[in-house]
């Protein structure tokens, strides 16, 4: 495709909805008004790990303004699910409403639907759950050590099981142990990221409105309308065509609105009551209940030669998935596939584990799996440079991948421009590079 003579592509033509934003005219999902709209609030687990002895909803049902109370027994279709089941990821492991056990503090147990948000909240507060607390496990490495209790029967060792019974998403490229033995230096470190809230200014929410034609329209702020609709239909065991999902402009996503967290239960409540039902996460729910960016722990070991060539990189990483799978197996595959970063290293070994803990389930956020990888690799690169006494700019330029280099996942580099990007950043920052490094290009190995 020719890049010449472009007309409007490449031009800053403004952003279409800015004036509407500035005037307050942009319609978000909750800016529609329906008469007789009900509100849904969730009674959530107070324990990070416990057997549920009993659930008593009688006081909630009797609470003023409460219209409907929903437990797992009211679910017409699935009791447990996973959002990627339709594309073959499994097993489905997450209860839609908890029944026998709770595995994280905040897990939904009973949905309470009321005439007002306050009535629903007050009703939900009156649900009584009796727990038999179980020991919890919160640290990823403790979770997969033998002594920790298994969170679910699906994962006896508390880690996701990849195809062929692998404990991790793997990369095996070259022979790292041989390269370590031949390396002039071994550089190792441990890296840790934290669970981070996507914190969109607008919390997760939807309004499910029954129409006269047997269909239900869902105003939602999901980042993926078809995905949310198809999962909602699958969970409730209804034809997807009965649902119409309508998005608008979303008040920020950042990966925080892909969990289909609010739509299924709202649709069920709308089906049960015949009235519009709104379920909007409170800010507290958004922070402690909605899935966070996964926390990752990485161990990085590099074999490095005196001249700066990195000859081997071995990475063991642990993604803290929290109590359930959600999209974590995808995230660790993306993480593994990103290694060893924008560098050509002839020997690479990666084990990227998904680990289950009694923490809130984690999920995607801006740079799923890659942010933690980039963080660890780039802080590691500085340690490598310091260890061998090399300028960190030169270290990166020397090792940066070139077009047609073979990556660890056995795909050749295409569209590579890391060298040029680093050189431009050096210029922008006033960093002088030796002539040989200024002369490098992303095509120089191909040429030479």
């Amino acid at each position, binding site marked *: 495709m020719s890049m010449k003579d472009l007309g409007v592509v490449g031009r800053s033509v403004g952003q279409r909805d800015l004036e509407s934003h500035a005037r307050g005219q942009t319609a978000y999902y909750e800016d529609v008004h329906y008469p007789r709209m009900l509100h849904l609030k969730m009674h959530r687990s107070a324990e990070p790990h416990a057997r549920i002895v009993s659930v008593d909803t009688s006081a909630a049902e009797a609470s003023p303004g409460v219209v409907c109370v929903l437990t797992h027994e009211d679910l017409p279709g699935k009791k447990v699910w996973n959002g990627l089941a339709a594309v073959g990821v499994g097993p489905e492991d997450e209860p839609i409403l908890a029944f026998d056990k709770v595995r994280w503090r905040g897990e939904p147990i009973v949905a309470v639907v009321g005439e007002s948000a306050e009535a629903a909240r007050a009703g939900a507060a009156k649900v009584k759950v009796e727990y038999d607390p179980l020991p919890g496990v919160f640290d990823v490495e403790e979770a997969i050590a033998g002594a920790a209790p298994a969170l679910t029967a699906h994962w006896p060792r508390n880690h996701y099981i990849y195809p062929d019974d692998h404990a991790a998403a793997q990369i095996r490229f070259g022979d790292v142990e041989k390269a370590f033995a031949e390396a002039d230096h071994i550089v190792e470190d441990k890296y840790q990221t934290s669970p981070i809230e996507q914190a969109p200014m607008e919390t997760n929410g939807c309004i499910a409105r029954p129409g006269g034609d047997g269909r239900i329209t869902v105003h939602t702020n999901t980042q993926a309308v078809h995905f949310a609709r198809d999962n909602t239909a699958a969970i409730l065991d209804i034809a997807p065509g009965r649902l119409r999902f309508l998005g608008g402009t979303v008040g*920020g996503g950042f990966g925080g609105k892909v969990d289909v967290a609010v739509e299924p239960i709202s649709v069920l409540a709308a089906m049960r009551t015949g009235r519009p039902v709104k379920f909007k996460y409170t800010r507290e729910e958004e922070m402690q209940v909605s899935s966070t960016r996964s926390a990752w722990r990485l161990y990085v070991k590099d074999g490095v030669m005196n001249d700066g060539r990195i000859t081997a990189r071995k990475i063991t990483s642990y993604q803290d998935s929290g109590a359930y799978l959600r999209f974590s197996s995808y995230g660790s595959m993306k993480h593994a596939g990103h290694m060893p970063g924008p560098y050509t290293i002839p020997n690479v070994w990666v084990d990227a584990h998904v680990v289950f803990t009694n923490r809130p389930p984690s999920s995607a956020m801006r740079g799923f799996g890659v942010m933690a990888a980039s963080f660890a690799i780039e802080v590691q690169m500085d340690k490598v440079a310091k260890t061998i006494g090399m300028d960190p700019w030169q270290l990166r330029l020397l090792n940066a991948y070139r077009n047609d280099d073979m990556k660890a996942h056995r795909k050749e580099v295409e569209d590579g421009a890391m060298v040029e990007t680093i050189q431009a950043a050096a210029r922008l920052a006033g960093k002088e590079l030796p002539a040989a490094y200024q002369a490098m290009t992303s095509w120089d190995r191909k040429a030479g």
Partner: protein
Amino acid sequence: MESKLIRLTVNGREEAVVADPLATLQDVLRDSLELTAVKSGCGQGGCGSCSVLVDGELRLSCLTLAERVEGAEITTLEGLNETNAIVPLQQAFVENYAAQCGYCTAGMVMAAKALLDRNPAPSRDEIVEGLSGNLCRCTGFAPIVRAVEQAARALSGEEAS
């Protein structure tokens, strides 16, 4: 609890709504008067997305009981466009890309208006302080600060002419 008739002056109009005595100004503006520019990002006073002017002063409508501001002049973002013309402050937000998702924008514009009404020529630091109760997750704030700087220049230019 029994509902109550609450009389409010909003964007220059007399309004009467029947609401719970503990209804917040945010509830009444959004749900009863359908002034949906007022957003509800946290309900905790932490984000500023629900900011409105009460007698010209910036307030959080989520933490204000509607019945306690009876008799006061309330201005929402919609109140800036009573004649449908976009005002210079809004235009500055547009030109500086001071919004992406737009959810914080109404509160941000109202905070900026409150600041400029008091201080027509704020320094950059004063702008930063004046917007410090309003969060934005998209823009990184710099475009918003620039928009307010531009608006201040535009407003002072108007006054001079």
